[in-house]
């Protein structure tokens, strides 16, 4: 019995040495699931791209309750993953604990920061991308009223909201910005019915462009916009294709790139710990223009937004980050 434990421990130790680069990566999806068409799905697509290009099957796990996080991450680490990618700010505590236990395993945490020598923390400057779509909303609005539907009322969603509001006001100082949060539990990220209700409520108040930063809840918002003939703005993934004609644009947050890069870097041996902050400059966030929304974005809008983008990159416009340490 003892010798098997010893062998297992040795194997675990070995797996963490150079051979590790050959093993498969692992990804942990957050509540909402990998098919939420938004945040988690972006991570899923990054992992799938890695699989397509390398032929390496990654292991995965979808979280259902908070208590599972630490256990799932430990399970993935123990099986000798080349890198464990934990998607979502809620995994911060669990990554911190497990990364200390497995100093030879690499962890990439998306959307939050853990300061340990074997953790790579990837965060995004969502407020910058939200600023651009806020401008787009204000410029496309005929009523001068734009809306925001958030998921769970947590700091990171407030960060989207503030950026959106500042962008809208930058484009049109008179614009009125309405805001609703879907709820106060994680279920707020997967409640399309309520999302649609909130969007309709805003439409009744004159809003004609609505931005949803709410995971799977957004699907209801976009549908409501389509039904009412208003415009909606997608989030995280490029969601323009969902309802061509009423999807004004999407605030893209390249979680897919972050996941893909963590996995390929771990494979190539170029993975580095530390904090990576991806903003407009790094093209970690942006505004999606493609064949589905081309005709909704006028050249004038595009020009003004491109100008602002450049100004933010150069620091001439500073967008407020509400999550920055006070």
């Amino acid at each position, binding site marked *: 019995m003892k010798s098997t434990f010893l062998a297992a421990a040795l194997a675990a130790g070995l797996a963490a040495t150079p051979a590790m680069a050959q093993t498969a990566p692992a990804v942990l999806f957050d509540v909402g699931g990998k098919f939420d068409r938004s945040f988690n799905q972006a991570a899923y697509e990054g992992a799938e791209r890695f699989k397509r290009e390398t032929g390496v099957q990654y292991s995965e796990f979808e979280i*259902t309750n908070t*208590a599972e996080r630490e*256990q799932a991450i430990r399970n993935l680490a123990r099986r000798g993953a080349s890198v464990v990618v934990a998607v979502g700010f809620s995994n911060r505590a669990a990554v911190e604990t497990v990364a200390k236990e497995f100093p030879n395993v690499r962890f990439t945490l998306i959307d939050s*920061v853990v300061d340990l020598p074997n953790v790579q923390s990837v965060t995004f400057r969502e407020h910058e991308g939200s600023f651009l779509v806020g401008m787009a909303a204000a410029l496309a609005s005929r009523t001068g009223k734009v809306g925001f539907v958030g998921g769970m009322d947590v700091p990171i969603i407030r960060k989207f909201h503030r950026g959106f509001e500042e962008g809208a006001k930058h484009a049109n100082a008179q614009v009125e910005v309405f805001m609703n949060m879907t709820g106060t*539990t994680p279920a707020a990220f997967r409640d399309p019915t309520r999302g649609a209700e909130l969007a309709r409520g805003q439409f009744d108040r004159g809003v004609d462009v609505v931005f949803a930063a709410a995971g799977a809840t957004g699907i209801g918002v976009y549908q409501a916009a389509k039904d009412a003939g208003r415009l909606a703005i997608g989030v995280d993934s490029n969601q323009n294709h969902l309802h061509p004609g009423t999807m004004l644009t999407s605030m893209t947050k390249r979680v897919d790139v972050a996941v893909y890069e963590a996995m390929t870097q771990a494979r190539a041996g170029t993975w580095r710990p530390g904090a990576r902050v991806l903003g407009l400059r790094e093209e970690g966030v942006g505004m999606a223009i493609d064949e589905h929304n081309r005709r909704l974005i006028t050249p004038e809008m595009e020009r003004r937004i491109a100008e602002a983008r450049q100004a933010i990159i150069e620091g001439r416009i500073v967008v407020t980050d509400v*999550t920055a340490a*006070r």
Partner: protein
Amino acid sequence: MRAKGELPAWIDVVVLPLANLTLAFALSGLVVIAVGEDPVKAMRVLVQGAIGHPEAIAFTLYYATNFVFTGLAVAVAFHAGLFNIGGEGQAYIAGLGVALVCLYLDFLPWPLVFLLALAAGMGFGAAWGAVPGWLQARRGSHIVITTIMFNFIAAALMTYLLSHVLLDPGHGAPETRRFLPGATLPSMQTMLGWIGVDAPRSPLNLAFFLALIAAFLVHVYIRHTRWGYALRVVGQNEQAARYAGIDPGRAIVVAMAISGALAGMMALNEIMGAHQRLLAAFTSGFGFVGIAVALMGRNHPVGVCLAALLFGALYQGGAELAFEMRGISREMVIVIQGLIILFCGALENMFRPALAALFAKPERA
């Protein structure tokens, strides 16, 4: 003298739950076959994952600790004829009480911190339970409605506090800083280390023993005290209770306070033991599972403990199942857990007539 169709006790507490459980597992097996996986393998992974090795057992017991607390909470209220759906909110608010002590009084010696956190958790939970109790007793607002509403109020309040007041800034996550080592519950690993036993790392902690003590005390309270008797009489027949000189309103408020305090103790396990920080939505639906646990455990503390163990095993084994078998997604695991709740809770009387025909003693003339 038993009424017609009533069963011997051993049938009621052993055979009936086992029959329900077997049927639930059989049906789950069919579902597993339907998605193209091997049900025997799935069952093996589930059992292995729940009780197969020391770490699995530790996790099962950790989940079970939560379910003992929330199950007892529902059971106590049920003895007074009240359906407490608010365990979730009561535990959530209790987490606030525990966290306030662990964050701001952590300079005190450990035993004092522990006792204060225990008192704060139970107190906050009790208060959150007693208000709906009072509304039921004095205003006639139905307890089911008010406790559900209080869950939402708790969630709104806690999210606000965690997003704006108590949060540890700079991480984007709605949670407080980690408690200092002197303000946490020792883990089972640590405690077994004291007596020289090597245990795997797990979130199982001192709260497990608190759960067992709580179950014992609930039993004593319900069956062997005058207050417990009053509570049961009110639950059985409010008119009779009033005639016997018991104040039903008072009994209802007390029952809900105790129920809330028990649900609140779950926060000790989660906040002070496992996570060692207050985080948003830490209750994870455990409060609701407590309803199924109490139903299955027939509102008896021993039954609640056994049912909690079963649900703990299902949670832990289910997580392993989703992990090991690619064809079985997390939704499948929820389906399997749901079937078990359905058969053991909602359909618990399905086999009763058949078993009654088999085992019930003929009525004496």
